[in-house]
């Protein structure tokens, strides 16, 4: 399997659509733990990305460029907590595929591992802090391990998304330690972290993309 810049665009377009659908749900999660804006923020950010995809990026052939511009655009449009986090993710991922018009499966593993590690480095959160890192660390670790041993990208990505899901769900039972909800103490227990949820949505959307025969270049 190989992906082109067009695939990145299509995948990002699907995130745009998904976020519009999940916006209210993400806000609701954030109202329980924080300031209630996570869905709004994600929507603002991805709408801005969408605009770039349709214009500046519409003819772009460099996969890395698409990811970099998406990250920067998202950051400019939203700021907030997730701006620097996701932007760093997409930019660090891009670094692994610099200048490439096509990326192969190994590249994609590197892309997603760098994505997760970048976010972790930016936010300095650890697993158990009740953030998106609870989704992303198990996700990228599983992906890396599984792919190293099996060399089967699709199967590895399935496992990684499963791990992401378990990580996301684990945030329900955690006490917040980072971000706006960290002062809630016991009252944070029982609510699923919004960022952990959006991170899961993003990686599982990629799974859907590569598995539903949507990929343009094989």
């Amino acid at each position, binding site marked *: 399997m190989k992906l082109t810049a067009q695939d990145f665009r299509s995948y990002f377009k699907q995130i745009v659509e998904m976020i519009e659908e999940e916006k*209210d749900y993400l*806000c*609701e999660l954030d*109202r329980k733990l*924080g*300031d*209630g*804006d996570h*869905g*709004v*923020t994600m*929507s*603002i950010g991805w709408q801005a990305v969408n605009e770039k995809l349709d214009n500046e990026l519409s003819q772009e052939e460099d996969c890395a460029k698409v990811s970099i511009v998406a990250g920067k655009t998202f*950051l*400019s*449009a*939203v*700021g*907030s*907590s*997730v*701006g*620097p*986090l996701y932007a760093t993710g997409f930019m660090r991922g891009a670094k692994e595929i610099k200048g490439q018009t096509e990326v192969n499966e190994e590249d994609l593993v590197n892309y997603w591992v760098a994505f997760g590690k970048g976010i972790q480095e*930016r*936010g300095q959160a650890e697993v158990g802090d009740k953030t998106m890192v609870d989704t992303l660390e198990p996700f990228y670790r599983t992906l890396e391990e599984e792919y190293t041993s099996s060399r089967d990208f699709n199967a590895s990505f399935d496992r990684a998304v499963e791990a992401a899901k378990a990580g996301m769900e684990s945030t329900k039972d955690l006490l917040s330690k*980072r*971000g*706006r*909800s*960290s*002062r*809630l*103490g016991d*009252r944070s227990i029982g609510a699923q972290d919004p960022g952990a949820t959006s991170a899961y949505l993003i990686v599982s959307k990629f799974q859907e993309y590569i598995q539903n025969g949507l990929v343009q270049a094989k």
Partner: protein
Amino acid sequence: MKKLMNDSRYVVEEMIEGYVKAHPDYIRQLPENDRSLVTTKETREGKVGVLIGGGSGHEPGFLGYVGQGMADGVAVGNIFASPSPDPILEVTKAIDKGAGVAYLYGNYAGDIMNFGMAAEMADLEEDIRVETAIASDDVASAPKEEKEKRRGIAGEFFIYKAAGAAADFGYDLDEVVRVAKKANENTRSMGVGLSPCALPQTGEPSFEIGEGEMEIGLGHHGEPGIEKGPLQTADRVADRLVNDILEDITISKGDRVAVLVNGLGSTPLMEQYIVFRRVEQILSEKGIEIYRSYVGNYITSLEMGGLSVTLMKLDDELAKTIDHPVDCPMFVQK
């Protein structure tokens, strides 16, 4: 909740447009970024630039506090969301007059990351020295031992005031930031929430609260507080807030404080002054001198109901900064 607005996607843009049009003598938008606002009264050569910022929805915080004696510029985020590094960097470039720029903002993950990235960019790309002081005045948001984890709420006003004055006195960057940090060290706030606000985009109440209930320790974005209970009298609420503050910081007989009773949005001034009345009683019973009082909507949360009490313990230097005149579109002090 009803809002007087046009498209909910453009509320921040339209607010800024109205703001700049209303006060053209005071404030201008940078051509490089429409979320970057700076004072029209050019920052003096050699004066430290004071940069504030954070999410929108706290008006008059933060854009209202750009002017003489306070901030030189502000980076404006979306509602309850830190600005991104771009507008911060643009403001930094515009207000650096060779003496560097002090960043002042509240202790939120988003602000720390975005302002942090902007500071790095200012250093690497623009060779501008940036130093930072982060407000963490909300005693309800973390235990005493972890003050650095606390949220910044209404006390940010005092920190801007102190740093703005220090910069105006001609202090250098390290000194301005020292004063800002001292102001933060000496400042404690605690709030009570009575009714929620709603983001224009969702219209949903930011938190749930029963008809006869109040929430002690509420954050100023609607973050849950430390305790929900039946609504009490103004005096009992004031007692609780002041008490928790005085358990957190030693303020003794003869000490001087600046007091801020800050309305969160929809709580009438009448109620704020009724609460102030009790705050004054408690302090004067303890022999603590009120050096200066501020009562009103200084840092709000859209139309949230409730208020907070802030005390800043003053030494001579901080007292001098509190006395310093200010001329901003939304706050003037002679």
